């Protein structure tokens, strides 16, 4: 009877034993198992190949580069001699995606709480689907919407923020505009809402019902129940979710490329027009790039790849840690 618990791992062991007994001499089994295993290995090979080929194609242009790749703010790889550095791109990427994460996380957790604990039970699935629709809208459409619709409305918000919070250097500057890092981060925040809220919802689903009922039985209000049993339990999951959102925002290309106007040089005033990110710069400058230019873009893409890899792995590790004490 113990084998019928449905626990995957124990059943898997049974299979293995059964499979070994049967597979003696059956060619079909060997071929099929080999194909399945081979496909898995192809996935690993692709990941390795991405790293290898990006590094390989980036080395040449990096050697020719006359500027410091890490600290220079100029991006001029098509000139002779080529001069390019990623300082501005790194600043734009980190700034826009961090802002997006800060804006999206509270809202996304609010959405997850709403769907899990506030909305009527019957509507919950439909409302969840509505939020998932946000993820189904392609980034090019967000870009078009941001460029033509949202940026027009951002001008007022930007000048208001500039007037009210201008004493903070980040919101300072003389000419708040509409194609700024701030506008880009608003678009990014909308785009990463669904992933943060759907992972938070998954985490909330795993909160033991006993914790919830215990706090309600003690006379807690709904908010007290959430604060005392749901939020502490889901903390690492929510942190992981927002980090996954951060990784998403860093890699987002087209929407940012359409919304941001490129102005050379790091501008710490995020309300002013201008700025660039790794991904947007690749999309914008690829068409005019020479061979060296393409290599330089690949080098910057490699940096983006490494950063998102680190953020994603850390996020997965944080989310996975939760599973251990379930």
């Amino acid at each position: 009877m113990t084998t019928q618990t449905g626990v995957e791992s124990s059943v898997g062991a049974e299979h293995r034993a059964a499979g070994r007994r049967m597979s003696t001499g059956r060619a079909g089994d060997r071929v099929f198992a080999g194909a399945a295993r081979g496909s898995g290995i192809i996935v690993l090979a692709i990941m390795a190949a991405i790293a290898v080929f990006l590094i390989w194609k980036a080395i040449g242009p990096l050697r020719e580069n006359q500027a410091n790749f890490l600290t220079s703010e100029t991006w001029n790889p098509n000139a002779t001699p080529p001069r390019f550095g990623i300082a501005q791109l790194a600043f734009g990427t980190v700034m826009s995606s961090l802002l997006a994460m800060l804006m999206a996380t509270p809202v996304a957790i609010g959405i997850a709480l709403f769907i899990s604990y506030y909305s009527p039970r019957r509507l919950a699935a439909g409302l969840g689907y509505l939020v998932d629709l946000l993820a189904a809208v392609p980034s090019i459409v967000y870009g078009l919407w941001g460029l033509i619709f949202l940026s027009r409305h951002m001008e007022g918000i930007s000048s208001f923020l500039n007037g009210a919070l201008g004493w903070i250097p980040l919101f300072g500057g003389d000419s708040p505009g509409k194609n700024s890092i701030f506008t880009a981060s608003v678009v990014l925040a909308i785009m990463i809402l669904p992933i943060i809220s759907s992972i938070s919802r998954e985490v909330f689903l795993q909160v033991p019902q006993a914790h919830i009922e215990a706090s309600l039985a003690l006379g807690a209000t709904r908010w007290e129940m959430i604060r005392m049993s749901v939020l502490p339990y889901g903390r690492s999951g929510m942190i992981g979710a927002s980090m996954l959102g951060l990784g998403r925002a860093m890699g987002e290309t087209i929407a940012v490329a359409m919304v941001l106007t490129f102005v050379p040089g790091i501008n710490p005033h995020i309300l002013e027009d201008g700025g660039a990110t790794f991904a947007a710069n690749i999309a914008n400058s690829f068409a005019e790039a020479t061979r060296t230019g393409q290599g330089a873009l690949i080098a910057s893409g490699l940096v983006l790849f490494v950063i998102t890899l680190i953020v994603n792995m850390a996020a997965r590790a944080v989310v996975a840690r939760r599973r251990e004490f379930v």
Partner: protein
Amino acid sequence: MSAAPATGLSKPTRTGSELTSVSLRRKIKDRLVQVLVYMAFALAVIPLVSVLWTVVANGLARLDGTFFRFSMNGLSGRDPGGGAYHAIVGTLEQVAITSLIAVPIAVLTAIYLVEYGNGGRLARVISFFVDVMTGIPSIVAGLFILALWLLTFGFEFSGFAGSLALTILMIPTVVRATEEMLKLVPADLREASYALGVPRWRTVCFVVLPTAMTGIVTGIMLAVARVMGETAPLLLTIFFTKAINTNPFDGPQGSLPTFIWEQAADPNQNSIDRAWTGALVLILIIMLLNLGARMIARLYRPAGGR
């Protein structure tokens, strides 16, 4: 293991004092949070409605026969007329090729993870990197195909190169969806099949896969909808053209996302209108795929599942 009981025990002791405090304040706090949570949800719905509304309102202007029957060949951004025939054909071909490559690899990988991996080291590593692969920025996938297919192997821009880039983005989503579905197949079915002396591969192909088929199809359709809207990798691998090119293996091809990108870059109103209509068509296709996937999942749900 020790972390959970600790939090579970320490909370109630703190709760005791808080729960006996003034009732009105607690009530107000509770209401306040409720309002905030409702507002958070409204905040998510506003952009969704706004995006869909602007796309529909602006896109209807050019949603005519010309749009579906003509390409942009010989037209500049200022000219009225013109259409996205070349882009729609290109997108459909690219997505079809992508699915042909990605689906077998992804489904077999999921089969390995669930049926053959047994939680061994290789299965764990593959599972981890599938997760990591989900997070690869689409532009990096494009750069990889650029570095491998175009710069190293020396091929030209082509629809096929774009499909290769999209494949990288499609594999992880299909693996995850298929894996979830295979895990839901009851172990009894497999054991019954083994007991009849059916070899393992036939069990997987003719018992496990058919049982999970609707879920897998749903997952594939959602993945197709996702890669269909990708733009960034296509810019680096397919480039774009205004003319009709039905051969995905030869030269630049059109695609809906790059069509929108190209038309939106031109400040003329005729061009912007075409971009909106392109966006409307793209969203319609994606929403249809999405809805279709959910319908299939609902209609063919296995009886008594979960």
